[in-house]
C-alpha cells in the first residue's frame, strides 16, 4: 500500500494524469485535434523564449552583484530540479539522493581541472557521463524497490558517497578542494569578479533542461514514464518496458544533475563533501519541483523562482546571527506551500484555465483563449 502512495497516485490510472499539465492533455485527447496540440506546443515555446530573453536582459537592469548571485542560484536550482523532475516527477521514482550525482559532477570536473588542467567544459561532460553510468549501475538493483524502500536506498547511497569523499584524502577529504584562481576566461569558466558570464551559463543550462523536458514530455518516453508512474503493472501489461524506462530516466536525470554540480564548482570555486553531497542538497534539488508542481513542465522553474530568492533573502536578513529566524521562515514557508497547494504552484494557473474553460469553450475549442 504505502509503496504505491509515494509517487503521487492519481485518480485516473489509464487516462493522462489529472494535474495541471495532464489536464490539458486530457482535453486534447477529447478534441483529438492535432492543430490545437501544435499550437499549444508553440505557445509553450514562445513563453519559454520570452522568459529567456527577459532573464537575459535582467542583468542590464540589476547591477548589484549580490542580486545577480541570487539570479544564478535560482536558475541553477531551476535546472537541477528540472533534472530531478525527469526521474521523480515524470517517472515517479522519488530520489532523495541526487546530491551524489551533483557531487560526482562537481568532483570529476574539479579534479580533472586541478590535476590535469582539463577545461571544465570537457570535465562537465565527463562528469555527466560518469554520473549517468553510476545511475545505471545503481538503478539496476534499485529499481526493484518500491516507494519508501527505494527513496531510503537513494538516501543511503548518497550518504555513503558523502562518507567516502570525506575520507578520501586525494580528493581533499573533509577540507575540500579550492580551485586555483587564474585570469578570467570562458575556457576555464573562471571569472574573479564578474557574475554576468555565470548568469548566462546558468540561463543556458536552465533553458537546456527545460527544452529536454519539453521535447520528452510529448515523446514516447514521456508517455511511458507517466504510465510507469501511474501504474507500473498496468503499463507493463500494455507493453511498456518498465525497467528500461526507469533506467533511461535515471541516466538522463543524473547526467544533467552532474552538469549542475560542475557548474556550481566553477561558480563558487571551492567544493567540500558536505556542500556538494550532503542530504540537505538532495532535498534542495527536489524541493522546487515539489513546491512548483511535481511532474509538470513549469513546476521546477516556478518553484525555484519562489523558493531560492526567498531563502537567500531571509538568510541575508535574518541569518548569520545564529538566532534561527531564517530557518523558521524557511520551514514555515515549505510547510505552508506543501499543505496549501499539494499539487504545486502551477496549479494556481491550472485553476484559472479551468475556470475559463466554460461549457461553451469546451464545445468550441477555438474559443479557448490563451491563458
Amino acid at each position: 500500500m504505502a509503496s504505491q502512495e509515494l509517487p503521487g497516485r492519481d485518480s485516473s490510472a489509464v487516462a493522462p494524469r489529472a494535474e495541471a499539465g495532464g489536464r490539458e492533455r486530457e482535453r486534447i485527447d477529447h478534441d483529438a485535434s492535432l492543430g490545437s496540440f501544435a499550437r499549444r506546443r508553440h505557445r509553450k515555446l514562445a513563453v519559454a523564449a520570452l522568459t529567456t530573453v527577459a532573464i537575459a536582459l535582467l542583468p542590464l537592469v540589476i547591477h548589484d552583484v549580490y542580486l545577480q548571485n541570487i539570479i544564478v542560484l535560482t536558475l541553477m536550482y531551476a535546472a537541477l530540479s528540472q533534472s530531478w523532475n525527469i526521474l521523480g516527477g515524470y517517472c515517479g521514482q522519488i530520489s532523495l539522493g541526487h546530491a551524489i550525482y551533483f557531487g560526482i559532477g562537481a568532483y570529476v570536473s574539479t579534479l580533472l581541472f586541478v590535476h590535469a588542467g582539463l577545461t571544465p567544459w570537457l570535465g562537465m561532460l565527463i562528469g555527466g557521463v560518469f554520473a549517468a553510468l553510476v545511475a545505471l549501475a545503481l538503478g539496476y538493483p534499485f529499481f526493484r524497490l518500491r516507494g519508501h524502500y527505494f527513496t531510503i536506498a537513494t538516501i543511503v547511497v548518497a550518504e555513503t558517497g558523502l562518507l567516502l569523499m570525506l575520507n578520501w584524502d586525494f580528493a581533499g577529504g573533509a577540507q575540500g578542494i579550492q580551485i586555483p584562481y587564474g585570469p578570467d576566461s570562458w575556457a576555464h569558466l573562471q571569472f574573479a569578479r564578474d557574475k554576468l558570464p555565470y548568469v548566462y551559463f546558468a540561463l543556458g543550462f536552465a533553458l537546456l533542461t527545460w527544452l529536454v523536458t519539453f521535447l520528452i514530455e510529448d515523446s514516447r518516453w514521456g508517455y511511458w514514464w507517466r504510465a510507469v508512474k501511474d501504474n507500473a503493472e498496468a503499463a507493463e501489461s500494455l507493453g511498456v518496458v518498465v525497467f528500461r524506462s526507469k533506467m533511461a530516466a535515471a541516466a538522463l536525470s543524473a547526467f544533467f544533475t552532474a552538469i549542475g554540480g560542475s557548474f556550481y564548482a566553477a561558480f563558487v570555486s571551492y567544493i567540500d563533501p558536505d556542500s556538494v553531497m550532503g542530504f540537505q542538497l538532495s532535498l534542495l534539488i527536489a524541493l522546487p519541483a515539489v513546491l512548483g508542481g511535481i511532474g509538470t513542465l513549469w513546476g521546477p522553474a516556478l518553484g525555484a523562482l519562489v523558493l531560492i530568492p526567498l531563502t537567500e533573502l531571509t538568510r541575508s536578513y535574518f541569518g548569520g546571527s545564529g538566532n534561527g529566524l531564517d530557518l523558521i521562515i524557511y520551514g514555515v514557508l515549505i510547510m505552508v506551500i506543501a499543505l496549501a497547494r499539494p499539487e504545486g504552484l502551477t496549479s494556481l494557473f491550472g485553476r484559472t484555465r479551468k475556470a475559463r474553460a466554460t461549457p461553451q469553450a469546451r464545445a468550441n475549442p477555438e474559443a479557448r483563449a490563451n491563458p
Partner: protein
Amino acid sequence: MGLIYALIAAGLSLIFGLMDVVNFAHGEFLMLAMYATFGIFAATALDPVLATPIVVGAMFVLGAFVYLAVIRYAMRAKANIGMVQVFATFGLGITIRGLAQHFFTPDYRSIQTSWLAGHTLDLAGIFLPVPQLFGAVLSCLSFVALFFVIRRTDFGRALEATREDAGAVALVGIDKNRVFALGWGLGAALVGIAGSVMAIFFYIHPDVGSSFALIAYVTVALGGFGSIFGALAAGLLVGLVEAISATVLSPSMKAIGIYAVYLVVVFMRPRGLFGNL
C-alpha cells in the same frame, strides 16, 4: 546503543507503519526531548532519571498537537500525498530546529551530574557504562509496554483498524483524528523516552536530531515498515553493525556498515526483515 536506536525507530515505525506517514521531523522530536530533559534539570536540578516521565508526557502532548495542527491537513491532500507529507514534516523539522536555535542558542550543552553518569558496572570483566545500561533497560520495558498497548488494548486495535480502513471505522464510531492524534502522541512519547535517556550521555544542540534521524529511517525500513517487532530487531542489528564497523573500518565510516546492511537486506527482502507493507 542498539536498543536506543530501536526505541527511536519504534516511534517512527509506529507513526509510519500505522499511519502511512513518514515523519521527517522525528530527529527534531528527539532533540526537543533532550532539551526538555536538560531544561528540567537546569531549572529544578531534578535528576534526568526522574524527569523522564515528565518529558514523555510533554512529548505525547506535542505529538498529538503536531498531528492535529499539521499532519491532519497533509493527509487530506489529494495529489502527491507522499511528497506533501514528506515536505510538510520536513518543513516542520526545519521550523523546530530554527525555534530551538532561536530560543536555546546553538551552544552545546550537557548534563554533567546525574546519579548515573560516570558510573560503570563491572560484569565479569565487561565494563558497562551505567547510563547506557539504564537506557537499555528502559527501552526493553518500553517495548514490552508498546506491544501490550498495540496488541491488547482497544486503542491499539482501533489504531490498526483505522489504518486499514478509515471509512469503515467511522461507521463503528471511532474518530479517526482522535485515534491518529493519540498514535502520534505515542510515537512522540517513545522518542521522548529515548531523548531523556540520551540527554545524560550526549551533547545537546539544535542539530543533534538529524544525525540520529537518518539512522532511524534506515532502521525502520530495515525492519520493514509497519512492524514494531521489525524495528526492535533492526535496531539491535544496527547497533551491533555500527559497533563492528566502527572497529573494522574507522569510527568516521561506521555508518557505511549500516547502509551496506540495509542495501543487502532490501535487495534480498524488498520489504525489509519483517515488513508486510
